[in-house]
């Protein structure tokens, strides 16, 4: 199976969920040649050749993310093409909207399509304001959360921060292992369709944990300011960490490695301290 389909599949599943279609009736055709004569619910065409024969009708919606989708008969619902090939033969009909985002398409003269739209992605680089707005908003949000949390539960951030500072190798190892393994597990969960919500939930928890790690690193950095105002120090520390991530991220390869390492250290420290509820104590070995 072509693993490049995975991100497209995730996007499609999000679109299906947002559109209110029942995920359980969704069919994902991954490989081979198929003639489909009857189907209710969403249909996703992966690395397969799917044909709707003459005089046959399916309900749709249909999402094409790879392979080839040939319409000789009729699709009652919408067709969304993100990649792959779409062929509508003479007599082939799409009653809903054909939304073209990517991939190749071929229409016979007698093909009937009720409505067509094309989504164009602007290739130009976004302006500096558009580029940095999400980062600034994220930084603002995390620094506010950090300022509030450090006043309410400083012991938790202390445990995580101390572990990240005193045991960076352990934190990095645990963070790296967890991120590699669970990222792969969640992506594959998405393929089962049934576990898609669990997959999204897992990814969200992962992001929250990374954010927690950034806040803890910000708390650690804020302590260096040597001010009794813990909330302010943590907020500024979080800003400092976020700026640092942006600055080092600008250095090719090495910068990404440093930024990734920092995030993974935070993630690992959060996990080994049970979100700061317990100090991390490595097993004692004889000196």
């Amino acid at each position, binding site marked *: 199976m072509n*693993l490049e389909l995975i991100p497209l599949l995730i996007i499609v599943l999000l679109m299906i969920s947002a559109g209110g279609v029942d995920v359980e009736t969704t069919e994902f055709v991954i*490989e081979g040649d198929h003639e489909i004569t009857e189907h209710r619910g969403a249909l996703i065409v992966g*690395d397969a050749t799917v044909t709707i024969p003459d005089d046959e009708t399916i309900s749709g919606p249909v999402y094409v993310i790879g392979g080839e989708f040939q319409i000789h008969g009729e699709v009652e619902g919408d067709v969304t093409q993100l990649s792959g090939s779409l062929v509508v033969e003479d007599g082939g009909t799409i009653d809903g909207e054909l939304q073209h985002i990517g991939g190749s398409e071929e229409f016979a003269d007698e093909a009937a399509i009720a409505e067509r739209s094309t989504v164009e992605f602007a290739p130009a680089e976004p302006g500096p304001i558009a580029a940095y707005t999400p980062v600034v908003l994220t930084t603002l949000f995390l620094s506010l959360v950090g300022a509030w949390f450090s006043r309410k539960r400083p012991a938790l951030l202390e445990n995580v921060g101390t572990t990240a500072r005193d045991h960076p190798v*352990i934190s990095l*190892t645990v963070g790296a292992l967890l991120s590699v*393994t669970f990222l*792969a597990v969640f992506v*594959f969960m998405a393929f089962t369709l049934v576990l898609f919500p669990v997959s999204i939930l897992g990814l969200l928890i992962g992001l929250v944990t990374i954010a927690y790690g950034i806040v803890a690193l910000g708390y650690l950095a804020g302590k260096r300011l040597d001010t009794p105002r813990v909330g302010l120090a943590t907020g500024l520390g979080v800003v400092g960490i976020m700026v640092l991530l942006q600055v080092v991220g600008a250095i090719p390869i090495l910068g990404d490695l440093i930024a990734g390492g920092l995030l993974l250290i935070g993630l690992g420290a959060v996990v080994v301290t049970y979100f700061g509820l317990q100090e991390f104590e490595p*097993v004692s070995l*004889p000196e």
Partner: protein
Amino acid sequence: MKLFDFVRERQWIPITGYLIYVSALTAGYYYNLTFVQLGLTDLGTREIGMAPEDVSIVMAVLALLTLVAAVGSGLVMDRRGWSTDLYVKFRLLFLIILVQLLLTIVAPFISTVEQFVLWVVVCSATLGLGIPVTFSFMLDFIPVRDRGYVAAVVAGLSFFVAALYPVEWRIDEFSLVMSAMMVPAVLILAVLSVKRFAFIDVLAGQHERSTFGVGRFCRPTSVRTLSVAFWGPVLLMFGVFFIDSLGFLRIIEEPLYIYTSWQSPDLSVRVFIAVLHVVGALAAGVLYTYFDRNWVFFWVFGLFAFTHLLYVFDIRFGIGETPALILPMFYVLAVSFYTTLNFALWPDLSTTETIGTHTALGVGIAGWLATFMSTALALYSEGIGLPLGGHLAYVNALSLLFIVALPVLLYVHRIFELARGEVSS
């Protein structure tokens, strides 16, 4: 790391011990990975013309005989005190490598089944003796504190080199490389066998210090051979080796998988695998050093379960395209993890009195017996025409079973401890 203290204090003799250990174990494991596990298959099938099933049976016999030889020699070494006599171990190692050198040189010239079987019998006897001899070096050379890292270096280096060279899994290629590698080792060990050196005398006495001679899990009380504390890890490691071997034996028979990963003509793919072996081993070394060993077991079973899930998924839904590198990636991580654990675990479950027996039983049963049984089972599954996808589904189920069984057994063990009043609640 204790090694850094030695470097800072310019204590070169203990540092030499590290170098001897890493060199000996890396070379030995590389020999086992390549020549024994892959070269003999090529010798049996291509050179002699035996059926793959017959070669697998001979390989299984080799595993079983190695177990017997390992346990026998481990017991004898402990009873006679050879486990703690470094000079005796050097002499035994000299004998082992000399015989293996001769076996390696003659291997490409073997042309009949009878010669092959005789070769295997002699090889298994020396391999078996080699297990307690080499694994017990840990007590002589490596302090408890550094064992996880040193085990990681040995596992990572062995796999790194094996993944890159030689590319062709052919007996003549292996024979040439191994012979060239063993000649200097034989010469050095010959000298060490007959002549005493002051620095070796110092190394020979290191096991008397508790930081070297008493394993991590033998504190405050030593682990008895007939105890759950010893046989629990043996069972878990047996499961790990069994799962690995059972799955890998069938995967390497699929050209689609093997020629796009371990034997890929693309150097970058093999470099990726080699580097990942090192990264995985180092990660395992860190986990072993700072966490309870059961976490490492848990990771290993989890990684194997996920790996086989990926393979089953690819077999069922793949369309014959080049499989993604994520498949061998997780396999490599799992293998590096448990190999690191295997090097460090048995010495850490031992003292100077039990090192020979424990390493022989641990490596023999977990490693060699598991290989023997998984080979037999893989042959059976092939014989009854079980497709690869179905076979790997069973392997996956076994991994999941161990993932569940591990915490359950730990919990039950804790209940028994509490019921007996051995520990406070």
